[in-house]
């Protein structure tokens, strides 16, 4: 990235952290998506590392196990030539009683440039960001936010459909526990899409219409005429808590099969943040269907995370000063 583009980044994306999608403007989102778009093309056409983050250190601090997101951030960092360190905190000193803030202070003393954090508690990443000097990226905090997932979903849609404004997007399934849903609602609304939430009342947040969405408890009706069907993972541990009676009943009424998908627009896209429960929230044949862009989502994930790292790097000491 050139000095000019760093200056541009500071103007259009003035944030030091990416903690939430709430409050992101359409300009900010489009800036990240444009950047990611170029990254995606670069990876496809060339694939060679770029030196944007050469000499920078990124720590992937995952308090909750994750393969896909962690690998995606690692790949993104390495493609920008950063030194990436993965810390799986579930097996570290945290289990010996160290608090989140102790961990933050310890890591801060090592002077990383960017920390990517996943935590099982909503708000934990925000708390950590207040205790460190570097940039922080939220890679998922509880049922709160997962900003890069929403951005990669938006990029996937934009590349497939050419636009996002005016599209109708159905987000289906376990919405109440989904950080993906919350982040997507913010991003899609900011970009002018119409968002529908579909699920049993037990899996909808309270006052869902206040989130700026239409709400359906009948999937056959909710999916009618939509451009995008975004399925969410049903967290199986929720079964015992009696949010839904069984995977069989959930699939019958809220799982995406060809019969329900036929109600959407003929060129509708099927999305899923993964990992999928095949036969629970999505039929295997739908997941592998030509309308499914689930693999593209994974690909766009790396491009989006590169874009976010680039945008935040404009704030790194030494980096931004040069640009100014």
């Amino acid at each position, binding site marked *: 990235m050139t000095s000019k583009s760093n200056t541009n980044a500071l103007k259009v994306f003035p944030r030091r952290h990416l903690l939430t999608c709430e409050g992101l403007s359409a300009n900010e989102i489009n800036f990240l998506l444009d950047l990611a778009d170029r990254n995606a093309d670069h990876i496809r056409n060339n694939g060679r590392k770029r030196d944007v983050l050469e000499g920078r250190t990124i720590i992937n601090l995952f308090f909750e196990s994750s393969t896909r997101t962690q690998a995606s951030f690692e790949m993104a960092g390495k493609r920008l030539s950063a030194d990436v360190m993965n810390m799986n905190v579930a097996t570290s000193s945290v289990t010996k009683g160290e608090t989140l803030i102790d961990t933050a202070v310890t890591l801060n003393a090592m002077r990383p440039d960017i920390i990517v954090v996943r935590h099982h508690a909503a708000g934990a990443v925000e708390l950590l960001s207040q205790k460190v000097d570097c940039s922080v990226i939220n890679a998922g905090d509880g049922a709160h936010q997962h900003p890069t997932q929403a951005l990669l979903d938006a990029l996937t849609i934009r590349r497939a459909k050419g636009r996002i404004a005016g599209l109708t997007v159905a987000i289906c399934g376990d919405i109440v526990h989904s950080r993906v849903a919350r982040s997507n609602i913010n991003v899609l609304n900011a970009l002018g899409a119409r968002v529908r939430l579909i699920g049993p*009342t*037990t899996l909808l947040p309270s006052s869902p219409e206040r989130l700026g969405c239409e709400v359906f408890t009948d999937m056959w009706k909710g999916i009618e005429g939509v451009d995008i069907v975004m399925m969410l993972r049903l967290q199986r541990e929720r079964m*015992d808590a*009696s*949010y839904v*009676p*069984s995977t069989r*009943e959930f699939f019958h*009424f809220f799982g995406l099969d060809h019969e329900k998908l036929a109600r959407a627009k003929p060129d509708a896209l099927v999305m899923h943040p993964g990992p999928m429960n095949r036969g629970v929230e999505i039929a295997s044949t739908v997941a592998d269907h030509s309308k499914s862009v689930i693999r593209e989502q994974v690909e766009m994930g790396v491009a989006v995370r590169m874009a976010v790292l680039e945008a935040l790097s404009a704030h790194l000491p030494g980096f931004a000063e040069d640009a100014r």
Partner: protein
Amino acid sequence: MRKPIEKPKSLGTATVFINARLIDPASNRDEPGGLLVKDGLITDLGSHLRRNAPEGANVIDCKGNVLAPGLIDAQVFTGEPGYEHRETLKTASHAAAAGGVTTIVVMPDTNPVIDQVALVDFIQRRARDNALVHVQTMAAMTKGLQGEEMTEIGLLKRAGAIGFSNGKSSVVNTRVMRNVLSYAKDFNALVVHHTEDPYLSSGSMNSGEVASRLGLPGISKIAETIMLERDVRLVEMTGGRYHAATISCQESIDVIKNAKAKKLPVSCGVSINHLTLNENDIGPYRTFFKMRPPLRKEEDRVAMVQAVANGDIDVIVSSHDPQDADTKRRPFAEAADGAVGLETLLSAALRLVHSGDITLSAMLKALTINPARLLGLHSGRLAKGAIADLVLFDPGEPWVVNKDLLRSRSKNTPFDEAKMQGRVLRTMVAGQTVYEYAGVERT
């Protein structure tokens, strides 16, 4: 969602009831007249048929007796499957027919519990092959009635379950109850709940002076009311359709009245036992009077009758609960709860009419159209095109209950040797006569 199927059981020639007193609470009809039945349906009714029978029809002269919609009993415990020695669907249906009951709603407290689609199918098939009356199924709202995991409410409703109950036990886990009400709302499913806090109801009869005198542990009314209050709050939060199965005291009526005043989707029922008996009937530890909820004080009984009369209580049920001699012939505290009641339901209810506490129409309303509306049934009314589920009864005929002559397989009736005034003369289900009083007791 699919409506419960109610097809005429068979086709036949026309039958006309003449010289009847037609009472239909659904249309406020109470007039002398006649009624024509063809192909299982009511095809005509009114005063013009009082003496005129269409040519070729079978004529039944009602001799001025009451012709009303067949009764719908929204709470019937049967022994099938699992406890067939107490009662089967077949024997329960015979008792129902003899009592003027044309639809019974069986509760899920069987063995295995009716908590799966296959069991709803089983009940429907067994009823189709063996029962004289319509049998509807209330499915369990939690797996195994354990109160911890919701059942497949959507699939069970699709299979034909008419409502969802936790049987004789309450769902103590508030979160589960909230989720059941929330989830059931999506399917417009009715949640029917027995309201009794188990931590406050470890006794064996109503708490009070009589219990103290008999040395029996008492169950306070608050055990019922506190659970009902909780449920109403959850209904307010979730908007789920809720029916309190059987309430038993003034305080519970107040809770229901308040909920209805807030326009909440709440209704309630009462058992015929609690309308006609009180705690004093227990006398010297008579276990046939041991019930859940327990029989309360006379003031509560009077309040309940009044609440049926003015519509605060929606539904009267028999709460038919067959228990064999082994479970009843025990010390009071150890004996099983419950009483049979299908065959005596109408006669016992007529006691309230004869005492002047309630009109015949108001009483029948709680036994016909109100349960029909609550459960989404098309029966429970006298109207052209309605299914011909009918009861013909003489409201003045005196008789004495003899438990040995009851059709139920179990004989645990609290009305044994009771003098009744009013009896069923004929019961018709989908145009077919399933019971006819021969003028003498069967032996």
